């Protein structure tokens, strides 16, 4: 491919449903070949963003460019394909018929047998879709998305409702398929999925991006520790000004300091202030996720 366009360019995307602002001025640029996890809690706006990215709905404001063109054109040319979060299969067709029928809509596709194989559902090709498990149906959706050999693959919570083994099989299929240059964007609630399969994590909350970085960078957000102490009347600003402090939070008589240098902070608290009950805990990715995506702590 010679195209130098970004795979995805979202600029100031905004979408409201009545009083709910589902997506709030979201801008994102994804380069070809990146594998990006869209991570956020329920209602964060992931599906709404993906719908606009795929041209399934129109933004109230902002623009969407996919592979340098409109989403509709990218879809019609088979340059983008997607596995949606809900619905979308005819229960009375067989797995194989669903794939062959969909293949007919394109000018050119990979052979049906090949995508069934890649999605790991060759053995159930003759089964009626209505009798397939949730995980099998999800792999069928994946097989359909593989048909056009897309440059961009978008997956909206592809493993929701699957058991641990189903999730593992699904990601293995996706991994096996990963080819050089294919861009992948997937939405997920699962940190471990984002961590294991993405090069880049975009954390969203309330329709906005709250963190965006390589998996390593996002993990670094979580690499520090939290020092907690009882300190009535803590001077939040003074603590925040100390070297190595990321955030300070005061909850009643307690103070929580997020930092990369917990020893120095503990020493400071014990020697320069009246702090007592000092505790040091390490944070993990889960904490970072919760801190960034739930309450408006320290913001």
């Amino acid at each position, binding site marked *: *491919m010679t195209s130098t366009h970004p795979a995805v360019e979202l600029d100031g995307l905004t979408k409201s449903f009545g009083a709910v602002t589902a997506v709030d001025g979201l801008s994102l640029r994804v380069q070809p070949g990146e594998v990006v996890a869209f991570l956020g809690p329920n209602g964060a706006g992931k599906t709404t963003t993906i719908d606009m990215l*795929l*041209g*399934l*709905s*129109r933004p109230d404001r902002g623009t969407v460019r996919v592979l340098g063109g409109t989403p509709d054109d990218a*879809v*019609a*040319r*088979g*340059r983008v*394909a*997607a596995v*949606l979060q*809900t*619905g*979308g*299969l*005819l*229960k*009375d*067709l067989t797995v194989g*018929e669903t794939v*062959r*029928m*969909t293949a*007919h*809509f*394109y*000018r*050119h596709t*990979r052979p049906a*047998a*090949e995508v069934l*194989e*890649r999605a790991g559902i*060759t053995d159930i090709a003759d089964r009626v879709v209505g009798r397939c498990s949730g995980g099998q149906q999800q792999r069928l*959706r994946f097989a*359909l*998305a593989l048909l*056009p*050999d897309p440059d961009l693959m978008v997956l909206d919570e592809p493993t929701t409702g699957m058991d641990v083994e189903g999730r593992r099989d699904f990601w293995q299929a996706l991994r096996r398929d990963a*080819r*050089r*240059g294919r861009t992948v964007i997937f939405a997920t609630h699962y940190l471990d999925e984002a961590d294991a399969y993405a090069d880049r994590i975009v954390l969203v909350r309330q329709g906005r991006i709250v963190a965006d970085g390589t998996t390593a960078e996002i993990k670094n957000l979580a690499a520090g520790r939290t020092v907690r102490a009882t300190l009535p009347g803590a001077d939040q600003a003074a603590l925040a000004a100390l070297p190595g402090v990321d955030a300070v939070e005061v909850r009643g008589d307690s103070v929580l300091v997020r930092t990369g240098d917990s020893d120095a902070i503990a020493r400071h608290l014990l020697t320069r202030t009246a702090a007592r009950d000092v505790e040091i805990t390490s944070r993990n990715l889960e904490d970072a996720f919760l801190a960034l995506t739930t309450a408006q702590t320290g913001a």
Partner: protein
Amino acid sequence: MTTSTPTRAAVTEPDRRLPALGGFAPGALGIELRRVLRNRRTLAFTLIMPGVFFLIFGLPQGGQSLDNGRPVTAYIMISLAVYAAMVATTSVGGAVATERALGWSRQLRLTPLRPAAYVATKLITAMSLGLLAVVVEFVVGTAAGVRVPAYVWLLSGLAAWLGSLVFAAFGLFIGYLAPAENVMQIIGPVLAVLAMFGGLFVPVEVLPDVLQQVAKFTPVYGMGVLARAPLTGDGVSMAAVVNLVVWALVFGVGAARLFRRDTARV
């Protein structure tokens, strides 16, 4: 089939041209037809039931003649063929409701298939099943001893079949009106009532006077008159033609408008 080392076109860029005819493809149509013919419910209501109706209600009239000497059984057979065709085309059109409810329409938007090509596939499928329904009814009638000149078979059959296009549009109209999985359970009885007013179960002339007047304005009336005209030799009234054209427009335009509303992206 290879399980390991699948060779793929990673080096050559896939063909990214748009499909011809908006993605309309005979192959997909074939799968769609097979799907319809596999549906026992559809087959029961479009192929078996009208045939059984003929055996129950038509055969006992054997030996009786119309004013022009043609058999009454032929009148009943043609009427039931119209009924079979309208149920067939409505059920295929109405299946859009199920597909919307299941989210298949949304899935289709992620393919190059243009909405117009989708509707064309549905219409062709509907008309194929409609044709089959007419043929089956005529075969049942012939097997049961109904004899009429070949031109009557042909013209009545064509009228019943082409008239059912109105109901393919009606099915699509309902399909785009209500995304419900079991839409035919609701439309089935409605079709039966319309068929009654259209004189498909009993001649309109035996209905009470008021209902006869109402009947002339209901959507099956026109196609019923047209389909039986070759048999009865009665002239085709202007009322019947206007009836057919108006209802075709109502359902056709209605379906088109709802279709456009459905495919508009919000």
